[in-house]
């Protein structure tokens, strides 16, 4: 297959740009400080600790913002990526050639999803983290990093598996691109509503939920609820992959 559209490279550039912008937008007026020269009760160590806590909060907020804004681009770029690298295989008969070798359909689908998740998740997770390490003072740490990492991987896997499923059903690059982008645009709009029509929608967008949780937008939500929600998203992902494999095994190439 010819290499025409640099989607992966474009995705990395978008993530870099978003990470840089969310870093700059965060470090703002919260870093006000006032010294009390001559005050005998002044506790310098305590004040330094407080400033370091603010820096940690800045790091967490900028990481959450970078991932949250990246999500808006992923819902466009990942369906496009699958449309051009998988659905097109149906159109130009590449898939028929690939399947003429002793390769199982399940293995092909699994490799496609796993590799795309790895290739897209790594820059999404590492670029903002690298910028935080490079730009913020040494010792700044992102809170809930594990939760962020898991949620990004699940989110990208969810978009990838739905795009794969749409590719298998529609077998057309342009139709896959349009349907995938539309589906995720509608889902993200619903998730971003202040009053969710149903809590089940949270399962579609773990990154957004964890980012909002880290930003303190879900004050009523407990940590255990976030973990449960991530487990629910994992269940949805497994279901989508299973349906995708079943359809792909029956589809005529």
């Amino acid at each position, binding site marked *: 297959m010819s*290499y025409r559209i*640099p989607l*992966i*490279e*474009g995705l*990395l*550039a*978008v993530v*870099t*740009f978003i990470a*840089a*912008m969310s*870093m*700059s*937008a*965060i*470090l*703002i*007026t919260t*870093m*006000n*400080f*006032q*010294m*009390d*020269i001559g*005050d005998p009760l*002044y506790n*310098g*160590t305590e*004040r*330094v600790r407080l*400033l370091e806590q603010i*820096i940690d909060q800045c790091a967490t907020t900028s990481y959450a913002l970078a991932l949250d804004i990246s999500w808006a681009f992923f819902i466009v770029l990942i369906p496009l990526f699958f449309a051009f690298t998988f659905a097109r295989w149906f159109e130009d008969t590449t898939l028929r050639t690939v399947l003429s070798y002793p390769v199982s359909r399940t293995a092909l689908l699994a490799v496609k999803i796993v590799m795309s998740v790895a290739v897209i998740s790594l820059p999404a997770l590492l670029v903002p983290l690298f910028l935080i390490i*490079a*730009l*913020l*003072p040494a010792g700044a740490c992102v809170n809930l990093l594990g939760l962020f990492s898991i949620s990004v991987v699940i989110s990208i896997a969810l978009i990838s598996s739905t795009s794969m499923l749409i590719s298998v059903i529609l077998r057309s690059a342009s139709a896959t691109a349009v349907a995938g982008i539309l589906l995720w645009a509608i889902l993200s709009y619903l998730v971003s509503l202040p009053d969710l029509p149903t809590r089940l929608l949270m399962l579609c967008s773990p990154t957004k939920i964890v980012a909002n949780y880290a930003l303190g937008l879900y004050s009523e939500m407990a940590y255990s609820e976030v973990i449960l929600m991530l487990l629910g998203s994992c269940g949805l992902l497994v279901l989508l992959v299973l349906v995708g494999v079943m359809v792909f095994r029956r589809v005529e190439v």
Partner: protein
Amino acid sequence: MRSRFMKRLQWLFALVGIAGIVASLILPFSGGGMGASIGPDDPVRGKMYFLAGDVNVHIAVRQGGPISFYVFDWNDSMEMVRTNSLANVSPIWSRENITDYEGVIATPALGLYSFIVRSLTNESGSFHVDISRRLPQSHIFMPSVCVTAFGVVLGVLARVQTRRKPEP
């Protein structure tokens, strides 16, 4: 295969570099400026900013006597807060005894910097400092230009390599 790998690298460097250039050109400046009352009870006021290049400043005393203005990097800022004193720290930029000043502060590297105003008199007063970024922010712009240029050079090399290949 090799040419495709070069093509990927070319796009990777070029696009990431362009993303950096665009970011350096439109980097917003949140909370730009500081203004406060200053007096014998609280003679030192400060604010911390993230800087990725030089900044324009306009310092004006609105009421009261002259002030001193200092810019410290992160380590000196923390030392200053820890010791509650300006004695053991050295600013990267300073202007003493001013009532009105307009100029440019050059920053040596990307990072957090504290902008400190100190009253030089025992009377109460107020001041205002306007701060704005000088775009493009050089500490992001220059590395991004280098990365983009590297991508372009890779592209040229890939093209030259393809042309030199004999026709099958």
